[in-house]
């Protein structure tokens, strides 16, 4: 029964989970209410399954996922920190979960105040005064940031065409640049892992609209030249964009606004612990400096004094003539805001600084453990400095000495019940392994990871085939990805309808229903 069976294949004619509410209005024939041209001729071929079997199906599926509540998940750049269970409780309060997005502000004061408080907290953390919570994820925030840059320059009568991105940049950065109608200009990386200043100077010209930077960058290194970088970019009239995916390293220590950035996005699903959900939801609020503020999306959540002067009130400001408009519907992923706000309340200012300190401590400890004999010679560190919240190793040693690839290491880790690091990113490191333990991991988990790594490398020295054919203990083994892309099967083909239970569903209306 734990074979791969889709919900469609579990379908049997006449089964159901849903019982319709009573029809309390006239049962007018559908034909009278909907003209022919508007009517579906055949029901959509959804599965027919009882509640017990739906539950079993998805519960059983869920158990094929590795997940953060199960074990160590050092996926670099993804900040897989613990998701406190409290957050699900507060997000589910009816006042949050059941609030319509178009409820009048007068009757959504709690929601608006929460958003306002979150904006204020994010502004303080990033050192930039104006926040829009609207973008749906990090890359959406990036796009908003570049559209703001465009609006800012347009407002000044400038037309710029290029955006600089370091070669260490996350893929969303260049992809965003293209979507925002700019041309990508790559900037190189210096020997210390930071931006190559000479290259930057060479490429920074009047056509440059923006430099997008992650600091610490995707190598886990803080760029000490950040002020000079800012000067160069600002010098040619560009804006400086902070990809906040790595903010977890520097909260309370250093703020993008103080580093000279104009625009920042936050990944609430990373730094502020919205659960990842297997690929979202997230939220990508942005913060900006005064000069960018006029262009922020509508609506903005603002504080007003209430008409009778009694206490603050909150409102949605749609009247922003220079605004870039809307990045999406309504006010953003409010449910995510609730969780991240709860997180900030739980930790407080000092707690957030501790988050960063411990994230950095954990990363450096694990880095030290992975530099030990028996590991370090196979996985040399790409740039040997103290790292921030993450670090990047190269699988080059293992490739040369053991003839196994980073991919093999990752797959063999699966058999050790830990999630592998991010692999083959950043691109400039050969056979990269990008490791981010986060602050919520105890020392034992870090040690277990290092031990597993040592063990699998020793094993590969004996018999590399084990790693090359790994994983061996997972629900499925290595999958044919090339084949999947060549002959894509992206939906289930219309099934032959399975027979029902003769003598069962027909005579027993409730039999088919969810209650049974």
């Amino acid at each position: 029964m734990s074979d791969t069976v889709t919900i469609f294949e579990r379908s049997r004619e006449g089964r159901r989970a849903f019982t319709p509410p009573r029809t309390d209005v006239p049962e007018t024939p559908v034909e009278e209410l909907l003209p022919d041209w508007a009517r579906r001729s055949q029901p959509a071929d959804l599965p027919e399954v009882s509640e017990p079997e739906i539950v079993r199906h998805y519960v059983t599926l869920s158990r094929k996922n590795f997940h953060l509540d199960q074990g160590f998940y050092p996926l670099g750049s993804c900040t897989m920190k613990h998701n406190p269970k409290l957050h699900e409780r507060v997000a589910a309060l009816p006042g949050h979960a059941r609030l319509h997005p178009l409820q009048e502000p007068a009757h959504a004061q709690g929601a608006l105040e929460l958003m306002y408080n979150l904006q204020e907290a994010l502004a303080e953390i990033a050192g930039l005064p104006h926040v829009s919570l609207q973008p749906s994820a990090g890359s959406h925030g990036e796009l908003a940031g570049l559209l703001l840059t465009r609006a800012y320059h347009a407002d000044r009568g400038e037309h710029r065409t290029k955006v600089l991105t370091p070669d260490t940049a996350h893929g969303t950065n260049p992809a965003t640049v293209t979507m925002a109608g700019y041309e990508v200009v790559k900037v190189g990386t210096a020997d210390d892992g930071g931006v190559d200043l000479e290259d930057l100077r060479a490429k920074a010209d009047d056509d440059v609209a923006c430099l997008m930077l992650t600091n610490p960058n995707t190598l886990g290194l803080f760029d000490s030249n950040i002020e000079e970088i800012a000067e160069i970019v600002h010098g040619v009239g560009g804006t400086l964009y902070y990809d906040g995916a790595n903010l977890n390293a520097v909260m309370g220590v250093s703020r993008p606004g103080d580093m000279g950035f104009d625009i920042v996005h936050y990944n609430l699903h990373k730094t502020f612990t919205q659960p990842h959900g297997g690929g979202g939801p997230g939220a990508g609020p942005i913060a900006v400096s005064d000069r960018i503020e006029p262009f922020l999306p509508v609506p903005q959540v603002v504080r007003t004094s209430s008409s009778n002067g009694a206490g603050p009130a909150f409102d949605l400001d749609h009247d922003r003539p220079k605004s870039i408009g809307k990045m999406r519907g309504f006010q953003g992923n409010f449910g995510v805001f609730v969780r991240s706000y709860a997180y900030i309340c739980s930790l407080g200012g000092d707690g957030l600084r501790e988050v960063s300190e411990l994230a950095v401590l954990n990363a450096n400890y694990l880095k030290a453990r992975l530099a030990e004999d028996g590991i370090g010679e196979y996985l040399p560190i790409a740039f040997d400095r103290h790292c921030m919240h993450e670090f990047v190793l190269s699988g080059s040693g293992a490739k040369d000495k053991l003839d196994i690839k980073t991919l093999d290491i990752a797959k063999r880790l699966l058999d050790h019940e830990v999630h592998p690091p991010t692999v083959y990113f950043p691109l400039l490191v050969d056979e990269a392994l990008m490791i981010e333990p986060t602050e919520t991991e105890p020392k034992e988990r870090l040690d277990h990871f290092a031990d597993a790594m040592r063990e699998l490398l020793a094993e590969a020295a004996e018999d590399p085939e084990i790693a090359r054919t790994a994983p061996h203990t997972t629900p499925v083994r290595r999958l044919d990805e090339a084949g999947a892309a060549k002959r894509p099967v992206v939906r289930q083909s219309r099934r032959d309808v399975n027979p029902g239970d003769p003598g069962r569903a027909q005579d027993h209306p409730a039999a088919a229903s969810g209650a049974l």
Partner: protein
Amino acid sequence: MLDAIGVGSVEDLFEAIPESVRLGRPIDLPGGMAEQEVLDHLAELAARNRHADAEITFLGAGMYDHYVPALIDNLVERSEFLTPYTPYQPEISQGGLQVMFEFQTMISELTGLPVSNASVYEGPSAVAAAGYLAKLETRRSKLLTSRGMHPHSRAALATHAVGYGMEIVEVPLDSNGVTDAEALAAAVDDDTAAVFVQYPNFLGTVEDLASLGEAAKSTGALFVCAADPLPLGILKPPGECGVDICVGEGQTLGNRLDFGGPSFGFFAASERFLRKMPGRIAGETRDVDGKRGFVLTLQTREQHIRREKATHNICTSQALNALAGTAYLSWLGREGLVELSTLMLRRTAYAREGLPFEPINPGPVVREFAVRVPELDAFLERAREAGINPGLPLRGVLPEYEDGLLVAITERRTKEQIDALAAVASRTEVPA
């Protein structure tokens, strides 16, 4: 741990950060709180929101008060679904990947289009994503949008189009609140990359997609439909009406209102767009032992592989919300979806008839309709007093309908509640 690292203090690890960019003071935020204190604080805030159980609400306009079955709560709160990242390691992510595959199949069934991705952010930005695809596909410069599109969709499309450099031209609604077919035909030209129509449109009318599509496609433009997936249970699927791309807001499928998000957007299209679609796509394949399995496929479309050449920049999407949608559609099932849509259809017809107001859009409607309410403000006030939120006044978003009110009827609204609304309405009609 510090010994193993070889430093004396955590502070030493931050040495790369110049003094000049250090904060140098504590973060200026209140101190941390106990769990119960956080709960109390957020509960106090939540209590100041009038939510959909605290009034009888006829608010819709893009998100709707549908019943979310309890099994969804249970599934989305399972750590196994809640806490993993995007399934980059398919061997240990078969649960999430198979859900995506099932989701894609269901969206494909609803829209009548052969391929679907595994979700995008939400409705209006999905519309913008369709615009970008039209640009990539046609290299043309103009997008035509019906004024019957959700105002947020039109706004998001405009905002994004500034980036990818396209002009937007609006096609008006006719006097019956449906897209003006003649104006559309007149506006379509060789520069038109795509034509956007909503189904049912923002006022609730079921547009005659097939007819509009003919005009739209006459010069080779793409025909894009933004659809609400739930009424598609009884409506002719966009794929059968010449639609090339169907996108939409998925909140109506098993997602909470959540003051507007998170929910999910969907993106379905004709086969030929498969390699240009945005976002994750799960595909079926086999493992080395021949066992069936699923992977993220066609990743050469995506930012992490193709970077500046990607067909979209989306990365984190809305997987958990799409799971809710998948479980919801399984729960409704083949017959249930029809029954539910039919119930909405009938209750909506009953409500439109029962309200003493002139319809703005007299055409076929499934779950929502617009009416003209004389003395709108007085009516709104009376309704509120009766514990009823009668719907969305249109003046804020479509000023041309100054006295317009958009009323949504889901399966949560009983005849009794509709009658209560009608009673308030009748009282307003005859000022005392």
